[in-house]
């Protein structure tokens, strides 16, 4: 900066969110001010550490959580050394030395080494199978363990421990959370909130060992269990340690910097050595070491301004808030959370909807709050706490949910520098600027431009408010692009379904007009969805709208990339006859099909059939459609079962055929697969089916919510029944409940995660009257289905409308 030609050398030790966020801010403030070199121990470019729990539960890949690609470093002229650890800082000579002996000089140095998991110092902690949860390598270890072991223990009932536990649970492990205290997240939640959280997580399948102090890890070389101070033990083949974090201070300490718990810094993030700074979880500011993401962005902003010579308010510490990233559990906490004599408390506890809200006030000002079950007001609450806003009737009404929403909401009160998206470090001002500069009108566009909402999505309501506020009157047209079932509406699936019932809407056109769709003809998302919802709600009255069907369901075949179709005839339970096989072979030859394929669902697929030949091939086959193209029951896969198999205890083929004949052709939210097995060897693979049935001596086990597709998920046991009649009633009720509550295109695997297995059990298994009513509605729906191939063959008008082609010979009159 002082010399025109010679740029200052900035070295950053630590390639994580704190260091790179600071670098990003420096590049924005004065690009070209520094020659930047970054050292990172991990072999990856900067990634979003707070999203490791998503990688663990496999909802995101490692690539998807990378924040800065290697191309980004290159494009900004940053020299990046991954997999390289800095071993020593010579603060006098102003150089850093790596563990392989290379040295780099600096004019300014930022230490951003982060933190590491704190490992309990108890006997046996060095055994195999005990890991922390801090980086991608830990995550990979956990993913591998989930494939090999079943019983896991997570020590620590804080934020990180619970996220790790939920991730392992999703991977199919039997997970117990061990916690020293009687309450979960006791540093953020009071007793009532902690109890609600625990109940919610127990419903999702987590187990808890509360008030347990781990004294020893059992096992030979590998851990086999835990022994607690009260003498009890817990079996565990895999242990995740998540009791806390420890700032990484070794480098700073050995290089002679002042270190307490963390590297000591002042309000400008300066360490005890000249031109050396520390940012993020490795530092200690005014006696506090932070372990959350928001403070590191706030620190980075101050440090970047200081290093670029821009005036800045010194860093005065952060109000930390916590938001749990577990699907289906909304937890927010910030500032004060425990009752105290000098605090006034506003409290609301709704046991029926399982919502708990608490706002703590000191001297008339908002000092803290806890939200469980509904964290929609979290951003505003945090803002009020941070700025010490005086408590008013309006604030009370807003938090307690009695206020009428005002346009713009709390966004107006947010300060420009307030971080709106904690995951990606996006401030209100950055959002407002891109909206103005690039004329953005939707949250999606803001996401593309700034990264806000891209990660956990928790800030989406605030981003929407900012958008509303910035656009003012222009916002209306943009409103539609928010969160509806498609771009044509802002209404959610449940709102649309409720309105269809209340207003008695029968056709999708009525729905689009009555509910004021902004595109009155709909789009490729809502057209098929509405057609499904209407058929589900009004099985008698609604007439199927062919023009709203996706090509495969309209033409009753599977379209291929060359415009030909695949034809799969029905083969109930995967059982056929020599006569049928011969007929299929003859037809395949006659129509010159390109390939005959045995499908994953035990059927035969004739591939490469010309569109115009479809009705003729159906007619020649004389078999019902196999529905291999539909959002409906595809196949019931069966094993040989007791008819032939030595191990078979139940007639799986027979039951498979009964089920397939009963439920075929009925529209569902998404494709639907079943399997029936004659014994627990499970040759027909029940665990990856929407409904998987396993026969035992004297009983059927019914598993639900399995999926072998893009997002694999093992089916879970719904119940066991003795008789075939009970089996069919449960299958009917389950399937009908899914039809009535599922979102269009939502597979049972996602649906059951959303509504919860325990809830489904309560509705289907425990409530006999409800089950009967569902099964009755299923019967009513089944009465209306018709075999589509024959229907088209029998109806010349329909056949012409769908398949009629016009052929005009060329050249007849001219040449």
């Amino acid at each position, binding site marked *: 900066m002082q010399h025109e030609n010679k740029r200052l050398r900035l070295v950053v030790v630590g390639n994580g969110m704190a260091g790179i966020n600071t670098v990003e801010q420096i590049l924005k403030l004065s690009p070209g001010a520094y020659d930047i070199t970054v050292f990172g121990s991990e072999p990856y470019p900067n990634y979003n550490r707070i999203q490791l729990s998503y990688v663990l539960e496999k909802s995101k890949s490692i690539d998807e959580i990378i924040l800065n690609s290697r191309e980004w470093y290159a494009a900004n002229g940053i020299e990046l050394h991954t997999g390289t650890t800095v071993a020593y800082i010579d603060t006098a000579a102003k150089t850093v030395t790596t563990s392989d002996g290379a040295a780099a000089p600096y004019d300014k140095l930022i230490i951003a080494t982060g933190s590491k998991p704190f490992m309990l110092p108890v006997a046996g902690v060095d055994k195999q199978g005990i890991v922390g949860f801090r980086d991608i390598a830990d995550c990979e270890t956990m993913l591998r363990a989930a494939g090999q072991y079943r019983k896991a223990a997570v020590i620590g009932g804080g934020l990180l421990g619970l996220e790790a536990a939920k991730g392992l649970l999703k991977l199919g492990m039997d997970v117990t959370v061990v916690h020293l205290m009687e309450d979960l997240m006791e540093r953020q939640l009071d007793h009532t909130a902690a109890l609600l959280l625990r109940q919610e997580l127990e419903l999702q399948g987590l187990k808890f060992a509360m008030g347990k102090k781990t004294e020893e890890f059992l096992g030979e070389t590998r851990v086999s269990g835990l022994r607690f101070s009260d003498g009890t033990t817990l079996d565990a083949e895999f242990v995740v340690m998540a009791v806390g974090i420890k700032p990484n201070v070794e480098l700073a300490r050995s290089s002679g910097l002042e270190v307490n718990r963390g590297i000591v810094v002042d309000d400008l993030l300066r360490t005890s050595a000249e031109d050396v700074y520390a940012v993020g979880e490795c530092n200690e500011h005014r006696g506090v070491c932070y372990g959350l993401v928001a403070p590191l962005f706030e620190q980075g902003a101050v440090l970047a301004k200081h290093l670029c010579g821009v005036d800045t308010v010194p860093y005065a510490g952060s109000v930390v808030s916590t938001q749990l990233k577990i699907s289906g559990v909304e937890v927010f906490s910030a500032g004060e959370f425990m009752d105290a004599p000098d605090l006034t408390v506003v409290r609301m506890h709704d046991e029926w909807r399982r919502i708990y809200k608490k706002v703590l006030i000191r001297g008339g000002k908002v000092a803290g709050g806890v939200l469980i079950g509904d964290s929609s007001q979290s951003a505003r609450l945090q803002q009020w706490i941070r700025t010490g806003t005086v408590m008013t009737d309006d604030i009370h009404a807003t938090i307690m949910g009695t206020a009428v929403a005002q346009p713009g909401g709390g966004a107006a009160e947010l300060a420009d520098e307030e971080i709106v998206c904690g995951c990606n470090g996006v401030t209100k001002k950055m959002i407002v600027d891109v909206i103005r500069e690039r004329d953005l009108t939707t949250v999606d566009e803001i996401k593309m431009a700034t990264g806000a909402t891209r990660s956990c999505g928790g800030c989406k309501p605030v981003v929407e408010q900012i958008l509303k506020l910035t656009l003012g009157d222009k916002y209306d047209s943009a409103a539609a692009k928010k969160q509806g079932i498609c771009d044509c509406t802002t209404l959610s699936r449940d709102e649309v379904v409720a309105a269809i019932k209340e207003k008695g809407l029968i056709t999708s056109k009525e729905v689009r007009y009555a509910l004021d769709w902004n*595109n*009155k*003809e*709909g*789009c*490729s998302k809502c*057209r*098929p969805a509405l057609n499904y919802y209407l058929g589900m709600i009004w099985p008698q009255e609604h007439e199927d709208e*062919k*023009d*709203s069907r*996706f*090509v495969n369901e*309209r*033409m009753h075949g599977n*379209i*291929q*990339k*060359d*415009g030909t179709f695949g034809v799969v005839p029905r083969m109930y339970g995967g059982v056929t006859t020599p006569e049928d096989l011969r007929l299929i072979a003859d037809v395949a030859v006659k129509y010159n099909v390109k390939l005959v394929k045995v499908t994953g669902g035990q059927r035969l697929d004739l591939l490469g059939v010309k*569109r*115009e030949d479809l009705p003729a091939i159906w007619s020649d086959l004389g078999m019902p459609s196999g529905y291999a193209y539909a959002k409906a029951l595809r196949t019931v896969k069966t094993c040989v079962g007791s008819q032939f198999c030595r191990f078979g205890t139940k007639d799986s083929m027979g039951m498979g055929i009964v089920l397939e004949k009963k439920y075929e052709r009925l529209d569902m939210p998404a494709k639907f697969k079943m399997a029936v097995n004659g014994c627990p060897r499970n040759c027909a693979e029940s665990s990856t089916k929407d409904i998987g049935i396993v026969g035992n001596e004297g009983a059927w086990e019914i598993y639900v919510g399995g999926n072998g597709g893009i997002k694999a998920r093992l089916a879970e046991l719904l119940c066991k029944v003795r008789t075939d009649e009970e089996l069919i009633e449960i299958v009917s009720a389950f399937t009908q409940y899914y039809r009535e509550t599922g979102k269009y295109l939502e597979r049972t695997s996602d649906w059951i995660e959303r509504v919860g297995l325990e809830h489904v059990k309560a509705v289907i298994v425990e409530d006999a009257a409800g089950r009967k009513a569902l099964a009755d509605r299923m019967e009513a729906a089944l009465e209306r289905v018709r075999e589509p191939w024959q229907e088209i063959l029998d109806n010349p008008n329909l056949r012409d*409308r*769908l398949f*009629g*082609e*016009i*052929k*005009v*010979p*060329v*050249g007849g009159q*001219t*040449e």
Partner: protein
Amino acid sequence: MTKSELEASGYYRIGAVGDFPERMGRLVHIGAAEIAVFKTSEGAIHALANRSPGPRGGTIVDGIVSGDVLYDPICDWRIGLADGAVRAPDRGQVAVYPVRIVDDEVYLGPVPEARPQTEA
């Protein structure tokens, strides 16, 4: 133009207006050329080459029609029925052919692909 003028300028009679269902494509073969013909809810008739502009290939005749836009059944791109242009954010172009309606008869053409021989 009259019917005879249309035929003289290389148009083909492909049927009556009522032969084309609303919002569902009908395949018309002119010689070797495959053309997807669509009628909108407003009654306008459009003719496009039956080839997806998207990267995965396929045909477009069985796509979902909404207003004057066709949703490609393979890649879900939005194709303008009148001009064949792919709507943003995707980019591409589908060949379109002129359509004339005279006395409830639908005329399509000229279709260069149908006649490799040079004429006009």
